[in-house]
C-alpha cells in the first residue's frame, strides 16, 4: 500500500518524523550547550529554534504539528504529568513559526510560501519568529504565573537564543551545501 496515495497518512508520517527530530535535537542541544542555559527551556544558543524554522518552511503544518508533539515529548520525559503549562508550551513552540510564516505570506500577498524562502526573507523570518516565539511564551507564562517578574527576565535570552540557534543551523547547512552541493539534474 504505497503511502503517497494517502496524503493524510503521508502528512502524519512527516509530523511523527519531525517530532522525533525535534526531540533528539533538543537532547543534543542540552548536551552541547548546557553551560549556556539561562533557565530551564531557555538557552542563549537554542539550536532546536533553527530546526523549527527548517521544519515549518519545508513541511508546513505537518512540521508545525511535529514540533508540538516533540515539545510535549521533551516536557513529558522530564515531568510525566500533563499540565496547561506543558500543553501551552508545545502549542506555542510549534504553531508560532507556522503562524509567522502565514502572516508573512499574507502581508506580502504570496499564494505559496516558496517565494518567501529568499535569503533576505529567510533572515527576516528568523528574526520575526524569534521575537514572536519569546513574546508568546512569556505572555503565556505571565498569565499562568503568580510571581511574574522572573518570567519576564527570560525574554531577551530566549529571543537571542532562538535567533542565534536558527542562524547557526542555517550557516552550518550553508557550509555543508557549499562543500557538497545538491546534484544538478542532467537536462538531457
Amino acid at each position, binding site marked *: 500500500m504505497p503511502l*503517497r496515495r494517502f*496524503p493524510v497518512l*503521508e*502528512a502524519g508520517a*512527516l509530523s511523527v518524523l519531525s517530532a522525533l527530530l525535534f526531540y533528539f535535537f533538543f537532547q543534543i542541544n542540552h548536551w552541547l550547550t548546557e553551560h549556556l542555559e539561562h533557565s530551564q527551556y531557555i538557552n542563549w544558543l537554542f539550536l532546536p529554534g533553527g530546526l523549527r524554522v*527548517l521544519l515549518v*518552511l*519545508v*513541511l*508546513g503544518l*505537518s512540521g508545525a504539528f511535529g514540533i508540538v508533539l516533540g515539545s510535549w515529548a521533551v516536557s513529558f520525559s522530564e515531568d510525566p504529568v500533563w499540565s496547561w503549562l506543558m500543553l501551552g508550551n508545545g502549542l506555542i513552540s510549534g504553531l508560532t513559526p507556522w503562524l509567522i510564516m502565514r502572516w508573512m505570506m499574507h502581508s506580502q500577498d504570496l499564494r*505559496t*510560501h*516558496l517565494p518567501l*524562502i*529568499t*535569503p533576505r526573507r*529567510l*533572515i527576516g523570518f528568523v528574526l520575526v519568529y524569534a521575537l514572536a516565539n519569546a513574546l508568546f511564551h512569556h505572555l503565556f507564562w505571565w498569565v499562568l504565573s503568580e510571581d511574574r517578574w522572573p518570567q519576564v527576565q527570560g525574554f531577551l535570552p530566549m529571543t537571542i537564543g532562538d535567533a542565534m540557534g536558527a542562524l547557526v543551523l*542555517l*550557516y552550518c*547547512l*550553508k557550509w555543508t*551545501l*557549499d562543500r557538497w*552541493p*545538491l546534484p*544538478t539534474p542532467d*537536462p538531457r
Partner: protein
Amino acid sequence: MFESPKSPLASAYLRFLQLAQSIQALPDGPTMDANETAMLEAVVLRWHEGQPMTVREAIGLAHLGSPATLHKRVTRLRHKDMLSTHSQDGDRRAKYLIPTERTLEYLSRMGHSLQTVQLDKA
C-alpha cells in the same frame, strides 16, 4: 496544469530545494566590493599562469588605481583572508601574492554557478 503537487512529500522536496538554494545564497563574512574583486582577479590570473604577482607589481596596476589606493586594497584583501603573501627562499625582498583556501573555495563556487547557468540555458 499549473497546480502545485498535492503530495506532502513532493511539496516538501520542492520547498527543500528552494530552501537549499536560499541557504547557499546567504551572505557569508565580509564581502568584496567591485574594486577588490578586480584586484583579486588580476592577482589570481597571474598565479594561475604560474607567475605569481609581487606586492610591488600589484600596487603598480595603474588601470586599477593609484599605488597608495592599491596598497590599501591588497591589505584589505589580506585582512579578509582572500590573499596571503609568500617569500621565496633566498630572496625575502619580493613578496608574492597567493590566493588563500578561502579564495579557492570562492572561485570553485563561482565556477559551479557558471556551470548551473549553462545547464539551465541548455
